[in-house]
């Protein structure tokens, strides 16, 4: 588990101290449902460890899989009507377009705090309890 900037600052003030090896099992497991994501970026703002970021790319398939009554779904319906083939890969997003960005989630940096799930307005980021067999698996000493 990587330290946050604040955590690193604390260790700098304590000479000789070192962080204990991560237990890897302190928090919840984050499951992302990309089809529900509206790209608001609240999860990225709430994330304390930098595991969730607003990316520079957008996957047009997210428009196809979005609920039909959502704004992304409406764009997906329009795009599907004129499309000649399935969207091919992700596209680069210009600077001032903020809502159409695929959220990048890096599970290796996630500390399982669940802040993204609390911040998410659509339930696209979900915090699940860690399965019982994994609890304590990473604890050493």
């Amino acid at each position: 588990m990587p330290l946050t900037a604040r955590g690193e600052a604390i260790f700098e003030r304590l000479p000789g101290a070192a962080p204990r090896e991560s237990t890897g099992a302190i928090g919840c497991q984050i499951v992302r449902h990309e089809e529900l994501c509206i790209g608001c970026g609240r999860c990225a703002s709430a994330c304390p460890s930098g595991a969730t970021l607003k990316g520079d790319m957008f996957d047009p398939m997210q428009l196809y899989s979005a609920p039909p009554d959502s704004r992304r779904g409406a764009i997906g319906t329009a795009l599907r009507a004129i499309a000649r083939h399935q969207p091919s890969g992700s596209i680069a997003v210009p600077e001032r377009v903020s809502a159409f960005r695929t959220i990048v989630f890096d599970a290796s940096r996630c500390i399982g705090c669940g802040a993204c799930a609390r911040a998410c307005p659509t339930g696209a980021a979900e915090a699940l309890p860690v399965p019982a067999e994994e609890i304590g698996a990473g604890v050493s000493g």
Partner: protein
Amino acid sequence: MTSTAAENTRAPETEDGAERKIVAFFCRECAYAAADATGNARVSLPTTIRSVLVPCTGRVSPLHLLKALADGADGVYVAGCLEGQCHYREGNLHALDRIEFSRALLESVGVEPERVQMFTMSAADSPKFVAAARKMHETISALPPLKRK
């Protein structure tokens, strides 16, 4: 009526003879004023163009552009203020990026990105307004009609 005006209002010449439809979003502060001046000067525009007034081009979202295409338009264009001259500071810059994004979306599904374009002009620049309308008309007339499912 002069011969050039008659020429402009003539039915569009396309290879298959079918008329194209172009939806145009005009900024109220500049392009619409230019459109007014064009009308006062009795210069005619291509008959393919259907205009929509918006308070600022920053109001136009990818949904407006793609829905227009999905619902029958063969091309869509947005006419807004010159860069740095937006009445709402940077609405036209947002529009430019959204149009770039919409073009990338179209390209990713195999539709010609030229079907969506943006032009900028000042309120007094009626000739540029007419040139933009004619250029869009020529671009879309050269493309086949947009197929829909």
